[in-house]
C-alpha cells in the first residue's frame, strides 16, 4: 500500500469552481427567461452566440497557446451569458460574437486567465463594442416590434422626466432594454439564490444599490424623490450590475470593508455618470473604473491584525 504524504489539511470542503460558475448560470436564468419572453427568440439567439463565442474562444486559446484547458470550469459560459445580458436583442449577431471573443481573449486570457483579469470581461467587452459600434449597442426597439425603435426608461430620465412605464412594469420587466436587465424581480431572485448558495455576499449589492438609492433620493430630478429613486434603481443596468457584475470575484475586493467601499464607489460613479455622462447609462464605466482600484482597496482595508488594535496598541 502506497501512502500519500501531503500537507495538511487532509480534508477539503465541497466548494468547487465549476459549481460556483453553474450557480451563477442558474441565477441568471430568470432574467434570461424574462428577456426572451419579452423580446422574442432573437434575444435567445444573441445569448447563444455570446456563450458559444466565449466557450469557443476559451477552448481555442488553450489549444493554440498550449496552455491548460479551462473550458470545463464553466467560467466562459458565465462570461458569455453576462455579456449577452448587457446587449440589446437587436444587436447584429457578428457584433455579439466579436464581443465575446474580445471578452475571453483580450480581457481574460491575456491577463493570465481565470481570476487574474483586472477588468470584468463582459463589461470590458461591452465598453469595447460601445466604442466601435455605438449604433448597434444603443438602439433599442419597442417590445414585440423589432422595426420600431423605442426610448428606454433611461432615455426619459435623461430629460429629466419620469419614464412612461409604471414602477410595477419596470419591476416585472415590461419595458424596453437590454436582454438581461429588464426585470428587477428576476435579477433579485437570482441574487437571493447566489446569497443563499453562499456564492456572493450581500455586501457589494447592498452597498451599490444603497448608495444609488441615497444619492438619487437626495438629488432627485423629476417626480417625487421616492419615485425618482425607485425609477433610478429599476431602470437600466443597475440591478444587473450590482448583483452580477460588481460581484465578479476576480474584479472585486476580497476584504469585507473593501467590498462595502467598492460597492459604494460603484453606486456613486453610476449616478455621477448618469447625471453628467454622454450616455444615459453609467453602470458599465462605473464598475470598470472601480475594477482598476480593487487591489488598492484590498490593501487599505486589510482586516485588523489579530491581537493588535488600530495604531498598534494591545487589543
Amino acid at each position, binding site marked *: 500500500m502506497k*501512502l500519500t*504524504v501531503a500537507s495538511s489539511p*487532509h480534508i477539503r470542503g465541497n466548494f468547487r*469552481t465549476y459549481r460556483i460558475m453553474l450557480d451563477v448560470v442558474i441565477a441568471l436564468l430568470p432574467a434570461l427567461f424574462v428577456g426572451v419572453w419579452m423580446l422574442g427568440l432573437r434575444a435567445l439567439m444573441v445569448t447563444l452566440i455570446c456563450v458559444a463565442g466565449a466557450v469557443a474562444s476559451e477552448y481555442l486559446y488553450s489549444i493554440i497557446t498550449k496552455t491548460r484547458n479551462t473550458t470545463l470550469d464553466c467560467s466562459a459560459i458565465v462570461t458569455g451569458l453576462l455579456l449577452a445580458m448587457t446587449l440589446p436583442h437587436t444587436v447584429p449577431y457578428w457584433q455579439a460574437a466579436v464581443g465575446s471573443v474580445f471578452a475571453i481573449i483580450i480581457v481574460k486570457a491575456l491577463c493570465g486567465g481565470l481570476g487574474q483579469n483586472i477588468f470584468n470581461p463582459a463589461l470590458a467587452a461591452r465598453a469595447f463594442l460601445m466604442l466601435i459600434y455605438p449604433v448597434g449597442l444603443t438602439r433599442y426597439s419597442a417590445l414585440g416590434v423589432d422595426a420600431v425603435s423605442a426610448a428606454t426608461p433611461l432615455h426619459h430620465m435623461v430629460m429629466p422626466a419620469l419614464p412612461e412605464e409604471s414602477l410595477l412594469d419596470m419591476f416585472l420587466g415590461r419595458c424596453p432594454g437590454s436582454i438581461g436587465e429588464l426585470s428587477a424581480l428576476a435579477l433579485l431572485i437570482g441574487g437571493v439564490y447566489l446569497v443563499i448558495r453562499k456564492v456572493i455576499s450581500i455586501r457589494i449589492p447592498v452597498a451599490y444599490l444603497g448608495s444609488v438609492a441615497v444619492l438619487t433620493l437626495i438629488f432627485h430630478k423629476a417626480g417625487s424623490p421616492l419615485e425618482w429613486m425607485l425609477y433610478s434603481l429599476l431602470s437600466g443596468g443597475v440591478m444587473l450590475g450590482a448583483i452580477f457584475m460588481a460581484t465578479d470575484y476576480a474584479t472585486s475586493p*476580497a476584504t469585507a470593508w473593501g467590498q462595502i467601499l467598492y460597492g459604494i464607489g460603484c453606486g456613486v460613479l453610476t449616478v455621477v455618470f448618469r447625471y453628467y455622462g454622454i450616455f444615459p447609462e453609467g453602470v458599465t464605466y462605473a464598475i470598470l473604473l472601480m475594477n482598476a482600484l480593487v487591489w488598492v482597496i*484590498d490593501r487599505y482595508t486589510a482586516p485588523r491584525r489579530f491581537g493588535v488594535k488600530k495604531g498598534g496598541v494591545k487589543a
Partner: protein
Amino acid sequence: MKKRPFFGGIHPKYNKEMSLGVTDFHMITPKQVVIPLLQHIGAPCQSLVAVGDKVLKGQKIGDGEGLCVPVHASVSGTVVAIEPRPHTSGRMVNAIVIDNDCQDTEIEFSPITAPLETLEQDQILHAIREAGIVGMGGAAFPGNVKALSAMGNVDTLIANACECEPYITADDSLLRTTPEQVLEGMTILRHVLKPNRVVLAVEDNKAAAIEKIRNIIGDYPGIELAVLPTRYPQGAEKQLIQALTGREVQPGKLPVSVGCAVFNVSTYAAIFRAVRWGKPLTERIVTISGEAIAQPQNFIVRIGTPFHDLIEVAGGLNEKTERVISGGPMMGFAQSDLSVPVIKATNSILCLLRDRNGAAENPVCLRCGKCVGVCPMRLQPLYMYRFVNAGRLDEMNRLNLMDCIECGSCAFTCPGKLPLVETFRKGKQMIREANAK
C-alpha cells in the same frame, strides 16, 4: 444574531460519531514498544538505560537538562535497541526499543496523599515534571515549565476539551469515562496558579460528555463549565482564549501575556494521576478513525505502541487507504511508515480514503475571498499565496504571514483547491532564513 466568539472559522463534516460507539476501552499489549527520547518541544532526553537492561513499567528511562521532561517505560521487559527510529514528525529520532515481557511488572509508585492545601507549589511542579507530562493536545510543551511560567501571571486557568478537529473523540471519551480525573487535575493546578477563574471549555457537539460533567461539577466549587458553539478552530489556543475571555494574544506572544493558561483535558487527567497516584505518563487515549479503518474506536494505548499494532487491532486498513495521519484531518501529519510509535501528543490515528474534494490538478485562485472570511487570525490568504509564490519577502511581512496558525480553514474552503497551508509553510521558512542572515 449572536456574536461570534472568535473570528472566522469553518464547519467541516465532523464524523465524530464513527469512533464513539465503543466506550469500554481496549488495552493493547504490543510485543515491542518504541519510546522516542524526544516527545516534547525542547531538548531531547539522554537514555538512562543500556541495551540488554531489564526495565519495569513506569521506570524512568530517559531524562535531560533544560527544557526537557523524562520519558518512561510503558511495559516491563528488555531494552533491545537505542537507535534513531521513524517519528510522527517525519524525522528520525533516537528511541529506546523495549521487548515486552507481558508481565507488566511495575515500579513502586509514590503518590502524594496529603491534602492539597498543605502542598507546596514546588512539590506539585516536581511531581508533574518527574511524570514526564507534556501538553497532550498536540503541542507537547513541557507541563511543569508552562505551569511555572504561569505562576503569579494568570487570572484565568482554562481546560481545553473543544477537540474541534473532525473525527477525533479522545478528549470526549476521557470526559465520558473519567471526568473526575480532569476536574481533580484542574483543582491541583488551581492550587498552584491561584487564578480567579477556572473554566472547562467544551464544544456543544459533545452532549454525553457535557452531561457527565454537569453531574459531578457541583463537587468542585469554583470550576465553571463553558459550552461553546461548535466551530473549527475553536480549540486553537488563541481562538479559545478569545472565545472565553474576549482577549487577543498579541502576535508572537504567549497566552500568559493576557493572563491565561491553557492545558488540554488529557493533560489535567495526567497531572491528577501523576500527583495523586504517582503514575508517570505511559499511556493515553488515542482515537483511531476514518473511512479506511474497519472498526473506528478509542483505545487506551501505551506510549510507544507502533501505529500498525493499533491498526491491526482495529480491524485493519482498507486496501484503498490513501493516507494515515497522526493527529486530526485539519492539522495532522501524514505518515509514510506505520512503524511510527504513539507518543505523548498523539491524540489520533486517522485512516482516510482519497478525498473526492482533494487537491485539483491545476489549482487556480478565483479571488473569491472566502479565505479572508474564514481566517481566524484575520489574514488575507489569497494575497499571501501570491506573494509567497512570487518570493516577495516585504509583502509576506506586510501581510503578517508569520501570524498564520496553519489551521487550514482557508485551504478547506478554497474552491480553487490552492495548496495554501503548504505554501505558507514555505513562506515562513523563507522569512526565517532571511531573518537568520
